[in-house]
């Protein structure tokens, strides 16, 4: 195992080891547990930084372990995996800080943080997976580690939500397993390589390759909450705020989208995938999801359910970009992967902070929260404007590239869909902002929690959303610079399409 | 009424099933390609062991491991019966049927019958190498003698002390020991050195007889006594 293999292993262990330790640590050892958590997250971010610098200098990071004759467990760092891994590592550090503050005096924290670390290990594993077999292993591990967090509260609502979550995700992963094994039986071991590993598609294999692609995309789209398969997402709102932030912005939902990206670009290659025709179906479903998600969000009264349906539609932007043939659309998809993560996590952080300090859960209870909690609500406003896609913010960039990509791919109606969904976004976000800033606060807040000192909420609940709001602004404004996610997405897209 | 009908249906289906199996067997047996068994090799190799009786040769030498496992089954059965009847209760176990006091005829016959039984058992044991006989038959006779003594209430049932347990597993341990010790002298597992083959086999047969005798006695005795059985004169 060369030095290059050490980095992926360290990243994996940096969350597996704390997870095991936390499980067997006593409930009362709060400081040690938080230390382990934060230490693991910081270590991960620093190793990712080192790898960013390394990949830039051309080093290769690869770790393979022969699990079965002919099938190996492969961790490989390439530009696409670094994109997702940086997003996960950074947002994970912030979510850890936020969760520590949010769950300060709640029961069963030991179990929560144990599975929390397992979850990050699975997400990072998905990003580093070098072949479909390893991707499936971590995809499965993700399901197992997020289930206990969905049922964390232990009341009937979350238990039912957990059962629905399991039913959807396990069926999805069975589809992925079937596709993986069939592909392996048909074509033999294939690793993820830019422009697709399946080089030759013999005519008689074309039919089964199409079916396999459909199975894989179907399986992954369960987690990416594509329309018919999105039922679990709104119900999983019964989980505590850091969990819903984690599930919707970073881990679960993105894992599904990332899986589809890997399959389409690094397994089949853009040309072959499009020739097989499955992506046209995906395009239709993605468009339908975008509209359906926004419409349903319009009618939600609970803040978190509205954000959940908004996520359902936002993730389908990524699938939309993947389904359109052309490097510009791919750039749009990749950059939206990062932007949506940053924007949505800010909104969930703010929703959680507001619920925690003022007991505000419904949209109509938002009146006057702006002046009451200026920092939190400004972050929420920035994120909301970014989601709508106004120019200076990150959201605008991804929608712009998706639109141009759609035109380039000759699917003009997609631009219409994008515009319609932006309007719908505005329709369900702006009233919230209006209530927050321009309405008088109610006589008494539902459950006002007094926070010591001058802060409107505990610092650990205010700083993370502020930071991520700054990111959503910076990614938009500094899009042109060399280190922005946009440049990175363009670098990856260039690799994916043959010169 | 319904219970009787589906009872009847069950019987009919069982009868049909059994008859088809029987028929299938008969047809299978009738046209089985009959190839000669291993008889010739047994006879040819048997002289090598200086044993005239082929069955004993097969039992103890050629397929010795079968017999070893069979003794393990017997000892296992005794242990299983003892588990069902914890030792504490066994001590109070009366002779199998605490029937009427032994009749004078029994009392007269007993001292004369026992030596004959033991003699026959000894003969069967010794004859095992050359004529029909062997460890199992001799062991059973020893067991039968012990049961008769207990039946006639002349002897109290043994309290399962250390010696009785030792005899119980003596046959199995002796067989295993002889089989494994051979390894030290470069022999294969369960291989008897040529010069001592007959002697070792007879020794194993002797220990087996004793163990089997005790096993059968315990199996017969071990059947848990009824609560109301009292050994005459035994304080409850």
């Amino acid at each position, binding site marked *: 195992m060369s030095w290059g293999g050490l980095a992926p292993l360290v990243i994996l262990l940096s969350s597996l080891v704390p997870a095991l330790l936390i*499980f*067997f640590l006593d409930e009362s050892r709060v400081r040690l547990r938080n230390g382990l958590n934060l230490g693991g997250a910081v270590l991960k971010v620093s190793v990712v930084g080192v790898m960013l610098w390394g990949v830039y200098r051309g080093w290769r990071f690869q770790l393979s372990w022969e*699990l*079965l*004759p002919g*099938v190996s467990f492969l961790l490989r760092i390439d530009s696409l995996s670094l994109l997702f891994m940086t997003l996960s590592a950074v947002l994970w550090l912030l979510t850890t800080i936020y969760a520590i503050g949010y769950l300060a005096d709640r029961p069963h924290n030991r179990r929560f943080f144990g599975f929390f670390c397992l979850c990050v290990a699975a997400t990072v594993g998905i990003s580093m997976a070098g072949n479909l077999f390893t991707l*499936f*292993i971590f995809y*499965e591990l993700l399901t*197992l580690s997020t289930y206990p967090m969905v049922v964390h509260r*232990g009341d009937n609502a979350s238990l039912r939500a*957990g*059962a629905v979550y*399991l039913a959807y995700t*396990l*069926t999805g992963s*069975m589809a992925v*397993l*079937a596709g993986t*094994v*069939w592909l392996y*039986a*048909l074509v033999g071991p294939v690793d993820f390589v830019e422009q697709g590993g399946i080089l030759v598609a013999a005519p008689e294999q074309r039919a089964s390759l199409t079916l396999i692609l459909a199975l894989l995309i179907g399986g992954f789209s369960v987690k990416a909450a594509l329309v018919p398969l999105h039922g679990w997402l709104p119900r999983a709102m019964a989980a505590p705020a850091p969990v819903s932030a984690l599930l919707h912005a970073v881990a679960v939902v993105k894992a599904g989208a990332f899986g589809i990206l890997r399959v389409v670009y690094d397994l089949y290659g853009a040309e072959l995938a499009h020739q097989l025709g499955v992506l046209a179906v995906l395009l239709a479903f993605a468009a339908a999801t975008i509209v359906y998600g926004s419409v349903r969000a319009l009618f939600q009264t609970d803040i978190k359910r509205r954000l959940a349906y908004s996520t359902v539609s936002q993730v389908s932007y990524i699938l939309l970009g993947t389904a359109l043939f052309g490097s510009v659309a791919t750039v749009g998809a990749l950059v939206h992967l990062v932007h949506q993560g940053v924007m949505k996590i800010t909104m969930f952080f703010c929703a959680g902070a507001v619920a925690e300090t003022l007991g505000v859960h419904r949209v109509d209870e938002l009146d006057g929260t702006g002046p009451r909690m200026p920092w939190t609500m400004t972050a929420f406003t920035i994120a909301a404007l970014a989601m709508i896609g106004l120019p200076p913010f990150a959201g605008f960039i991804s929608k712009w590239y998706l639109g141009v990509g759609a035109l380039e791919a000759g699917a003009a109606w997609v631009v219409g869909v994008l515009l319609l969904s932006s309007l719908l976004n505005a329709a369900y976000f702006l009233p919230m902002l209006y209530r927050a800033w321009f309405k008088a606060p109610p006589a008494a807040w539902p459950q006002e929690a007094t926070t010591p000192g001058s802060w409107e909420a505990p610092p650990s609940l205010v700083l993370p959303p502020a930071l991520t709001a700054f990111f959503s602004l910076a990614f938009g404004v500094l899009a042109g610079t060399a280190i922005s996610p946009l440049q990175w997405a363009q670098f990856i897209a260039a690799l994916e399409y043959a010169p | 009424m319904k219970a009787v009908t589906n009872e009847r249906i069950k019987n009919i289906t069982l009868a049909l099933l059994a008859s088809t199996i029987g028929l299938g067997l008969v*047809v*299978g*047996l009738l046209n*089985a*390609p009959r*190839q*000669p*068994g*291993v008889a010739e090799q047994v006879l040819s*190799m048997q002289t090598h062991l200086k044993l005239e009786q082929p069955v004993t040769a097969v039992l103890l*030498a050629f*397929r010795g*491991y*079968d017999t*070893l496992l*069979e003794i*393990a*089954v017997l*000892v*296992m059965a005794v*242990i*299983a019966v*003892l*588990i*069902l009847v914890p*030792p504490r209760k066994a001590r109070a176990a009366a002779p199998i049927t605490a029937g009427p006091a032994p009749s004078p005829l029994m009392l007269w016959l007993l001292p004369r019958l026992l030596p004959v039984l033991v003699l026959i058992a000894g003969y069967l044991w010794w004859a095992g190498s050359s004529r029909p006989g062997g460890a199992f038959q001799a062991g059973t006779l020893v067991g039968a003698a012990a049961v008769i003594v207990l039946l006639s209430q002349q002897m109290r049932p043994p309290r399962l002390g250390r010696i009785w*347990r*030792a005899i*119980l*597993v003596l046959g*199995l*341990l002796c067989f295993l020991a002889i089989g*494994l010790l051979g*390894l030290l002298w470069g022999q*294969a*597992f*369960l291989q008897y050195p040529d010069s001592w083959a007959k002697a070792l086999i007879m020794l194993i047969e002797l220990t087996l007889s004793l163990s089997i005798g005790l096993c059968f006695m315990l199996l017969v005795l071990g059947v848990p006594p009824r609560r109301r059985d009292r050994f005459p004169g035994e304080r409850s």
Partner: protein
Amino acid sequence: MSPALLLPGLILPLVAAPVSFLLGRRALPWLPWLVALMVAGCLCGLAAPLLSEGELFLHLGNWEPPLGLRWRFDGLVWGMIAATTLVCLAVAVYADGYVPNRGRRGRWLGFWPVLFFLWGALNSLFLAGDIFNIYVTLELVSLAAVALVTLDGRPQALAAGMRYLLLALVGSLCYLLGIALLYASFGVLDAALLAERLQPGMTASLAMALLGVGLFLKTALFPVHGWLPAAHGEAPAPASALLSSLVVMGSLYVLLRLWLELFGAVLTPGLRQFVAVLGAAAVLWGSWLAMCQRRLKLVVAYSTVAQLGYPLLMVPLLETSGAAAAWSGGFYLLLSHALAKASMFLVAGVLLHAQGHDRIFQSRGFAGRYPMSVFAFGLAALTLLALPPSGGFIGKWLLLEASFGSGQWWWGLVLLLGGLLAAGYVFRVLVPIFGDAGHRHLEAVPLRMELAALSLAVGSVVLGLVAGAPVRALQAVVLP
């Protein structure tokens, strides 16, 4: 140390059985460890020659097969005996702490000789190459198993034990009848020689059917699985761990090896499909029943009935291109199932020991008080659900690869559906025990019991991680 010296070492537990019967309480706790270490030593010693020669033989008493008995030792046997040693040692450590403190030390003294007899019988069952020797070993295994079931002396356990022994006896008689036919027709009892002489015909297929019925009864496979849940449910926890993992594995191993090696030619494609259909029915019916049980031990027992169906799925796949994958997948599933199932029953025992009953919906808060046991149950459940880091996943992946590769994709569907159904009954158990215990009093459980359960569960996960070498060794054993 030549194999001729190490192979007999594998049946040391048979020597330990009478010794433990003589020593009684004094033999604890060192004897199980001693026997396990010696058997493990022999296994390690045999690993090298096994890798070089692929298959080792030992003629018992130095007599050539048609006359004497022959032991066969290959990669698969190595795996089976290693799993048996692991489970028996873990159960021995567990039982030392489990002895019900109701002072029935006397009855539980019988547990140890029975455990060693079972251990030795299973080891010689895997080694045996002679079909009559297999009959005698199966008898010893069944007798030891029933003695374990009736250990407690509770009326339900006695009835379950009686039914089990009667059916096992009928199974043995059918098996013996098959032997009688084979010996009468082909004149030889050694499995390898019989495979050469055997010509397909009326008698050969009748013998195959009889052997099959007998072993189906002993393994409680689908049509005749009725006795298993009652027997494994009523037996004390360490006993049901042994029964559900090793005893059924032993007779299924014999069934698969005899059918596939002796009757390879007699098994027509139609018959192979029928056997696999029985396996699929076992998976679906067993999982469905497991979902309806209210007691944890019955859920785990019915899950055994389901999991035993999987290896049968490999029978039709052995004629196709995916033969090596199917063969290694089926047996790998069997091996990891043994470890996982034993661990699950040990956890059920901890639950029983802690609260006196194992009714699932009245076990709230068990997870809070015994995290290590529930963690072990979770790890073991990975194998049942065939989820990635476990041995069960590797086995299922190989079987899926064989079924998709050979075009018989419907067996793949059964495997996937089986995984989902398993998720159904596992999570139905996990959810209630995660609640909060409130004021319920849970008795303290000795640490050794939880550690034993955890070590087996970790073993089944390690089987999933280091699967490269074992699977390649299994594939080297693919039939002629």
